[in-house]
């Protein structure tokens, strides 16, 4: 059995879409690190309100892909359009897209010298020019949503990993993003903290946020995602609805990967 990228996308993405409005449009995108070809011919259209889970073996380029979407990494070929704005080297465009797209990192990356509240109000105040008082109200609203309003005046170093990641989510939400990117948000956490973060993300999904999430939490994928994307060696190998993806994987590479992460 050969598994080239073309004959494997088992379901036409058109059938999976939840709305007609395109949130992210990636066309024929390629990226190199020096001479190393990390991403090859990526084509991906994300519709508004979609929840997409990206999985794949380590080094397959999952992080690189979602970091290209908010221009933390530069792509060399092809095009990326976010909310109709085309990513180019123009700094104005990049800043605009970044303020529309929230991102959560594996290691939270909270600002350790600022309190939780200041972490959440910083970007609204400086980027959106929101008045301080209003920004603080918004921040408290989202901190309540992630269930840690009482920690607002502490410093990140005084919180547990799970709490820090929830603050990171709240910090992104304070910018009122239209799209959220998650890069393995739970993989640096202890098992008992994973749930509290996943719960927050599920709630977010239920509210209709457009989400792209790199994760190996397959339970989360089954429950929340309406599309699962499998990447290997810089390519999108397979994408499908979660049920079909897990129960009836098409390519050998997907089968091997699924047997490895679900098998034990």
């Amino acid at each position, binding site marked *: 059995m050969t598994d080239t990228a073309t004959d494997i996308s088992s379901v036409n993405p058109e059938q999976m879409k939840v709305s007609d409005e395109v949130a992210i449009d990636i066309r024929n995108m390629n990226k190199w690190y020096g001479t190393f070809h990390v991403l090859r011919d990526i084509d991906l259209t994300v519709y508004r309100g979609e929840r997409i889970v990206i999985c794949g073996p380590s080094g397959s380029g999952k992080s690189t892909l979602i970091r290209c979407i*908010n221009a*933390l990494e530069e792509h060399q070929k092809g095009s990326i359009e976010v909310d109709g704005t085309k990513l180019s080297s123009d*700094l104005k465009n990049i*800043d*605009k897209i*970044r*303020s529309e*797209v*929230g*991102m959560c*990192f594996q*290691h939270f*990356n*909270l*600002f*350790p*010298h600022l309190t939780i509240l200041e972490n959440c109000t*910083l*970007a609204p105040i*400086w*980027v959106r020019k929101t008045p301080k008082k209003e920004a603080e109200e918004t921040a408290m609203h989202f901190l309540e949503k992630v269930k840690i309003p009482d920690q607002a005046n*502490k*410093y*990140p*170093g*005084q919180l547990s990993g799970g709490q820090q990641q929830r603050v990171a989510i709240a*910090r*992104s939400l304070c*910018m009122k993003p239209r799209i959220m990117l998650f890069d393995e948000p739970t993989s640096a956490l202890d098992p008992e903290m994973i749930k509290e973060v996943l719960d927050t993300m599920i709630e977010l999904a239920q509210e209709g946020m457009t989400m792209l999430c790199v994760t190996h939490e397959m339970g989360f994928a089954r429950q929340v995602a309406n599309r699962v994307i499998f990447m290997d060696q810089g390519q999108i190998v397979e994408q499908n609805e979660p049920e079909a993806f897990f129960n009836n994987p098409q390519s050998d590479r997907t089968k091997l990967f699924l047997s490895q992460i679900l098998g034990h």
Partner: protein
Amino acid sequence: MSDTHAQSVGFVQKTQIPPSPPPAAETGAFKWMRENLFSSTANAIMTILGILAIYWFASFSLPWLLNGVWDAENLSQCREILDGTSGACFAVIAERWNQLIFGFQYPSEEYWRPFLAFLLLLVAAAPVLFSKLPRKMLIFTGLYPFIAFFLIWGGSIWVPVFALLGFVAGYFAFKKLEKQSFAMGFFGGVIAAFAFWWVSGFITPDLSRIIPIDLPAVPSRDMGGFMLNLILGTVCISLSLPIGILLALGRRSQMPLIKWICVIFIEFIRGVPLITLLFVANVVLAYFLPPGTTFDLILRVIIMITMFASAYIAEVIRGGLAALPKGQYEAADSLGLDYAQAMRLIILPQALKISIPGIVNVAVGLFKDTTLVSVISMFDMVGMIRGPILASTDWNGVYWELFLFAALLFFVVCYGISQYSQWLERQLNTGHSR
């Protein structure tokens, strides 16, 4: 429940044994000495040798210090009072106090001016050093350079006033243009400030004639003594910090031209001894200037020392920037902060905190290096001692007392700076660190 258990319970003591003091030989000073000074034969020998060395040193320095003469006109009078016994001649410090502090040319009826400037310096520095003080005090800090200049150099008040207004004009231009872009605001501000100064250059002489508010002017060449060290130290440290930050950021810039300018500047300055730069300031700069222009010597020296210190500070800060995890830059970027905001709000506060020990190290070194200006015939404290005081017939030969005094003054300042930095580090560390 068995009988054995019931019986064994009987052996449990009902009352707590009151704490008893350890045996006498094990307490207090004895215990400490036995553990620390005489724990082994080798240790005991070292302790005894150490005590002997201290005794030997104290046996001649203490009488010399305690027997010191504080009141005498000159060295021979001092020797008469001592009458052959061992003793220091501190009278030179008392007699030449003003010269040591202000130099030998600053008009004595104006001593209150630098002294007042020094007191105000403490007020101006306080809110910068202690973040608990009201932030409103920073307004005074911003005004201080102009007040201090007016006090120390004197002349017409309109010169510092217009200098200040130039900065204000630049600031407003910056604020106006900043909305378009940071770079535009920055250059707009600089241009506005220079334009203002250029215009005010025509107004100042007339205005000074019409509304004369002035203090007697004291030219730069009359500055001297410890005052000169303090002026150079304060000005150069406060200028080299922002310049060092810019150089450090420039060195990490993506733009090759800016990066290479910064690299070449830093590496060149670090490869040249300060004393060479000072000679350049003294001789060579004057050679390049058109004849007839007077370019203040102190200003030239300040430029050189500032360049020297900022190159070192840049390297210290670069270390701090490199020590920050990449995630901090990415988080700032992903929130949509632009470069200036990310640096000012996220990166620099953390990088500077890491760099405090290194920066203080440079600052202390710089302050001591200000004594090097004595080799280009400026009469700072060391210059005063080596020149006018030791060369005078009255005090020819009182090296120890004078240099001891100079060492003490520098020690007090430098030790103060280092203690402050340790305190600051402790302050910044509470609860912030991950």
